[in-house]
């Protein structure tokens, strides 16, 4: 099985990386660009059945994201 966790900066938190990329994209012809937010995409390969949703939530909170400044979502891909 494979879990794909997406971690994104919280809405109210400054995302300097996103802002810099937005500015660069604007210079590259995307003048009307809105917000750009850059997060992480984490792919975890595991033997099938190793992990359930509750445990994955816990790992996301404790390890894979920083709950102070980030939100996360995940998907379990068969």
């Amino acid at each position, binding site marked *: 099985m494979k879990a794909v966790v997406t971690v994104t900066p919280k809405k*109210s*938190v*400054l995302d300097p990386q996103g802002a810099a990329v937005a500015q660069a994209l604007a210079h590259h012809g995307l003048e009307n660009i809105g917000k750009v937010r850059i997060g992480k995409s984490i792919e975890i390969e595991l033997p099938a059945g190793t992990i359930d949703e509750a445990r994955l939530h816990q790992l996301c909170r404790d390890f894979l994201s920083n*709950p*102070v*400044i980030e939100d996360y979502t995940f998907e379990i891909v068969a």
Partner: protein
Amino acid sequence: MPDPAITPEVIAKHGITPEEYARIQQILGRDPNFTELGVFSVMWSEHCSYKNSKLELKKFPTTGPRVLVKAGEENAGVIDIGDGWAIAFKMESHNHPSAVEPFQGAATGVGGIIRDIFTMGARPVFSLNSLRFGPITDDSAEARTNRRLFAGVVAGISHYGNCIGIPTIGGEVYFDESYAGNPLVNVLNLGILRHDQIARGGAVGIGNPVFYVGAETGRDGLAGAAFASRELTEESKEDRPAVQVGDPFREKLLLEACLELLASGCVAGIQDMGAAGLTCSTCETASRGGTGVEIELDLVPKREDGMTPYEILLSESQERMLVIVKKGQEQTVRDIFEKWDLPYALVGEVKDDGMMRVRHGGQTVVEIPARQLADEAPLYAREAAEKTADFADFAEELSKILSAPSASSAVQKSLVALLADPSIASKRWVWRQYDHMVRLGAAVLPGSDAAVFHVREADKFLAASADCNAIYCRQDPREGARIAVAECCRNLACSGATPLALTDNLNFGNPHKPENFLQLREAVEGMAEACRVFDTPVTGGNVSLYNESPVAAIDPTPTVAVVGLIADPAHITTSAFKQAGDVIILLGDLVENTPAQGMGASHYLKVLHGRKAGSPPALDYDRELALHNALRALIAAGLVRSAHDCSEGGLAVAVAESCLAATPALGASISHLPSSSSGTTSPLVTLFNESQSRVVISVRPENLDATLFQLQQLGVPATRLGEVTSGDTLEISAGPETYRWPLADLHRAWADTIGTLMEG
């Protein structure tokens, strides 16, 4: 959404007492609205107003022939270093933000202090950092948390400092239970400027335009100043949305743009937006200028929609400045900020009515007399507990420890244990994460007693050190603070430098608790006295109170940092032994002549016996000064090959560190410890006491006589201890026994401990 009504609960939530509220009503001649209440609450927080500490801070000496701008006048004091050059430097804490989010908390701490320095018109040249964490050694959940905080803080400092390109050249790190859950993160920045480049933070010139420059305002860091002025509790976690994220890249642009702007001559006043952001910068510049400032919030660059006046005014978004521009020169500002791709806006004007006036959506939302808001916060003389120090029990305990039959076999393992204690062990794991070489100035790399930096533009050599032994301060805050200053100046003397001035960061617990306030007062008085003795006026600093975890207050930690000047690069001296055959000499006494024999509050007691007990070593100013002067004289005469002061862990640790600091490591043979002291004194005392005013130097054998003669002339006791060897052991004869440590064992203990703990 309408503003909440002002109820007693709302007032209390803002940390404003009923008396303070009455005072606000009196100043305004009416009730404040919600936004104004928020403005008062941040400006009158401890963090901005120093209401609990100001009466104490007045005890510091702040003047001197080299002082060009006094502490408290502006963002940082400015000190003359000769030839028309000056330095501005100051230390600042970011303890509470780092407890909540170590990486960003530490990073934004670095950003904040750097802004304070370039606000003065100075180009930031280097940083130091002083860090404290709970223990990191075992496998407990608590130790894991402490390691996470430690790793995060170091990474945050590294991230911000490295990216902005300002070298972090020194600092200190200690680990102790008292900081569990409440780490201390104090950062110093120093900048260089010409005398005629000093910038002021006053809103002068009625009618002058007021510009906002730098990052857009967001909802981050809302009311951080108030946050810093409270104890950390479980509820503090709810403050988490207040976490600020730093953008060192933006700050680098802001730094370059501001220095360019200042050089253009169009600036009438400039002020960074730090704690309490736009609020603090507007009322402080107005107050300093003896004017008023009116700003229009609709014009402020914002990151988010729908922000209320309260949110905009109290936001602590980073990387922002307020600039008062000479009328008619607005275009210069626009050109420079466009060149650097930074947001800016003309947001207001200097007025003649002494008011801080804020408009939003066509209405006046704040109208407060600026001076009363910025400078007339209530001041409190808090109650201090009675002094109770009584170390009677300790003498007995100490004699038991030292007379135990195992004492002499204990020597062997004690040195290794001390070198492996994370507070003493090499901090290379930390400083190799900091770019300490950028700007081509690091003449002495981290790891020696003081960092030495060549300021290229001025061709001056500066030395800097940060110190505080908090065990001493816990046992006796007055003596501990005196020793912190002395040790800092001693570190400078070891490097060949003469101290110029000092900055401090007073980290204490809740001042409403009389025992904590006593500690604060004692430490300030001790520090002030020592500053007079060592002729180091205070250039500014910071007070961080309410450092308490749910368990207890931290040990009182009045960190000090001293900056000095090295007259000639030939005088630069380091702690590493240089060559086999050199003679090792101890300057100062082997053991102080007190019942505690320099063992009170020692690291030996803490590391080997888990005790923070006894009175700290006694500092004698005359001896200390004589030592510093002698060191500088010997160094100037070209006699000193290495110099290293005895601090935590005493003589044996100092000698071992000088061996291990050499590349490759050098051995030493200490065979001349006087028998009188080793006869009546336990070798544990001889080797590990922390008596003050002591330095281990090495000299070429042919210079031994000249050195001892000079020391005698200068009235500094000196003992020839032995020789530097090319062997692979450290060998010490104390009393009847000779102890031998393979250097490889010592090296492993000292060099690898922190890295191994952190990398697992």
